[in-house]
């Protein structure tokens, strides 16, 4: 059960990271609110 739980968490982590990268390559969120982007995703 714990092994399955770990796998589910890994999937959530991967999907959310992909989503963050998608937003990072865009001008902004696809909606009218833009939170502060994490430092490691910001372009210098």
């Amino acid at each position, binding site marked *: 059960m714990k092994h399955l739980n770990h796998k589910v968490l890994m999937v959530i*982590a991967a*999907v959310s990271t992909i*989503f963050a990268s998608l937003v990072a390559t865009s*001008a*902004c969120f*696809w909606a009218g609110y*833009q939170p502060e982007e*994490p*430092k490691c995703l*910001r372009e210098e």
Partner: protein
Amino acid sequence: MSRVEYIADQMAVKIAAELQLDEDKRAVMAYGLFAFMHMSLCALSVIVVGALFGVPLEAFLISLTASFLRKSSGGAHASKPWICNAEGVIISVVPAILLGIWHYQLTIYLVFITGVIAFIWAYYITLKLAPVDSPGKPIKKQATRERLKKRSLLILNVYVVIALVSLLVYYLTANRLFLKYSFCIVIGVIWQVFTLTKTGHLLLNSADVFLNNLFKKRGRES
């Protein structure tokens, strides 16, 4: 921090602890989770409120058109997620309701001429202003600005094709739904391009202040 941001943050903290991820990965995960939750909530609100007024598809089409272009062109932003949500619902559902009431007065010529004027204006504003960044996500590199401008223009090209094909299908089948869909795309483009302009920023900032004050006052009274 909004409630949705808080939930995304807490989820990221727990997942990062369980998977032993570092602070950067946790922050990226929180950002991605919030992006997913906020955008899903916005889309769902538009569909649900649109359904209450009998125009879910039209409202969603207007919202989708604006959102997809917004991804590359940027634009004025709300100060809080719920204000963004409220503005999104108003901007998508109100035109969809009006379109539902007056769609029998729409003609192919009216949609075509409105579309031509709207797209000429959209290309001009996009070329001149896009991408419009925000304090939360500044765009510093010139190469990124050029890439996003090109992508915005490409999306506009795709919209022109979809709107024209929709008009052509209406011309061939006389199914008025296609006339409506074509006009929804035009409305979505007009709204999104308007948020790139100074007037758009002024209007959205005023709406932001108004909604903030309205709910602060209500909070004090209750």
